[in-house]
């Protein structure tokens, strides 16, 4: 293993911290998610490090509880959108013809409706439960993954090494797994980092409209919304969850940059 740069260490530390909150948040939280401990926006004390929120609940505890919802939902949705979008995109690139046409036009149709509107319609119709939320976001997001995977696949599919594999008689599974995927990995890893962060913000946006994660459960996006009027009074309350989102976004991108560094160097360098 090559030496890990400082930025990657910072990113890894941030992600580890968030993962800990994701896995053990409720155990670490000093207070309950819904416990009302005082008045709205009470300042920080030795017990409530970040003060209280708009309903007088402990900010630290809600951040820890919220990690589970926010990170869990975003991670699940991103993973699902990739596992749907990638194979279909590669398949469309590989097969071409009517397979490509049908899939691409379907995706175009979904993409020409703004994501937020599609999500609102689905969530309104089916009700906003966690599985529905995750699957809706994942499927809407997978259209973008599909587009990226398809264009990457098309580019690699016309390379002579892919042609050599096809002439050898290799099937679609080998071509996708061994010829296309390793060579498309760099942009896909970058995309995953981005998608994860966007999903985060999208969940927050849905929460803002009341269709995301439902109260009384805490999630970081919803907490920004709930505490927003605090900004008017110069309070820090909405900044804590916002900072948590920003921190994780930065952390993910630092790690993604490090993962990509080895793949974006000129040929032969550093070997």
């Amino acid at each position: 293993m090559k030496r890990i740069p400082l930025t990657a260490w910072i990113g890894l530390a941030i992600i580890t911290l968030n993962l800990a909150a994701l896995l053990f948040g409720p155990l670490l939280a000093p207070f309950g998610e819904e416990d009302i401990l005082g008045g709205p926006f009470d300042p920080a004390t030795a017990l409530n490090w970040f003060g209280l929120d708009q309903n007088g609940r402990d900010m630290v505890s809600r951040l820890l509880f919220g990690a589970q919802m926010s990170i869990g939902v975003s991670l699940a949705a991103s993973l699902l959108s990739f596992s749907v979008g990638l194979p279909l995109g590669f398949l469309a690139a590989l097969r071409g013809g009517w397979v490509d046409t049908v899939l691409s036009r379907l995706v175009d149709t979904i993409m020409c409706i703004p994501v937020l509107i599609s999500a609102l319609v689905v969530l309104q119709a089916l009700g906003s439960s966690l599985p529905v939320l995750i699957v809706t976001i994942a499927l809407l997001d997978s259209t973008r993954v599909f587009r990226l995977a398809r264009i990457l696949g098309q580019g690699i599919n016309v390379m002579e090494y892919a042609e050599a594999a096809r002439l050898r008689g290799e099937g679609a599974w080998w071509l996708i797994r061994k010829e296309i995927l390793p060579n498309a990995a760099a942009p896909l890893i970058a995309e995953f980092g981005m998608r994860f962060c966007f999903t985060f913000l999208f969940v927050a946006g849905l929460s803002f409209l009341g269709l995301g994660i439902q109260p009384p459960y805490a999630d970081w996006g919803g907490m920004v919304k709930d505490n927003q009027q605090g900004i008017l009074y110069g309070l820090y309350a909405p900044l804590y969850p916002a900072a948590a989102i920003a921190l994780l976004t930065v952390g993910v991108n630092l790690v993604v940059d490090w993962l990509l560094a080895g793949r974006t160097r000129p040929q032969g360098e550093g070997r």
Partner: protein
Amino acid sequence: MTDILTIRGLRVEAPDGAVLVHGIDLDLKKGEVLGLIGESGSGKSTLARVITGLLPPTAGAVRLDGQALPPSYTARGRDLLRRIQLVYQLPDVALNPRQTVGEAIGRPLTFYFGLKGREQKQEIARLLGLIGLAPDFADRLPGALSGGQKQRVCIARALAAKPDLMICDEVTSALDPLVAEEILRLLRRLQDELGVAYLFITHDLGVVRRLADRTAVMQRGCVVEQGPTEEIFTPPFHDYTGRLLASVPELRRDWLDQVLAARTTA
């Protein structure tokens, strides 16, 4: 000797109806080297793509060892695919940059012959020895190889399939003269040792002269002359062959003037 490749009345048209090659009759005997020369756009590579099944012909027959080849490679069985191997012009894009040399050479061994583990390792080492590379090259990625080494690996990958026919499409064009020389000597040696038939596509007449038993000359999608290499390169020349030969630069000060003068009077 029997023919490994027989082409009769081959005609290929582009989707827009343009004729790419037509009226091609070619024979290639087992273990023979057939040189295919002609200027760019004369249809040499088109012919290679038809034989490999990448470009189905409009009319005509292609037979391998007397057996009719399905027009598209997708309709060919694994063994048929194994028997025809292609070596590309640009070794940089013919090797997957994310697969080590060992993986590239080892895959045909697994795919066609089911070799795994130790047996496969030994065979990879043997093939690497055949192309003059040390066994530890197996762990390298193509990015860490020179152009000539990459082309050697491509040749080894083709040889791994134990083909009856190897199509070499301008294999030395992207290499500098000294490395090209090495590759040619390697191909010559392999041909002597293994007796694989080569279809050697090139526009370098010197290469054909040295390597090919027989030569076919193509012009505008048509084979205008074919025969034993010595005959092709001994006067009297076919009109087009003569022009090709005259266009090989010679180290004389007035060479170009003479060629141009001869062309205007002709």
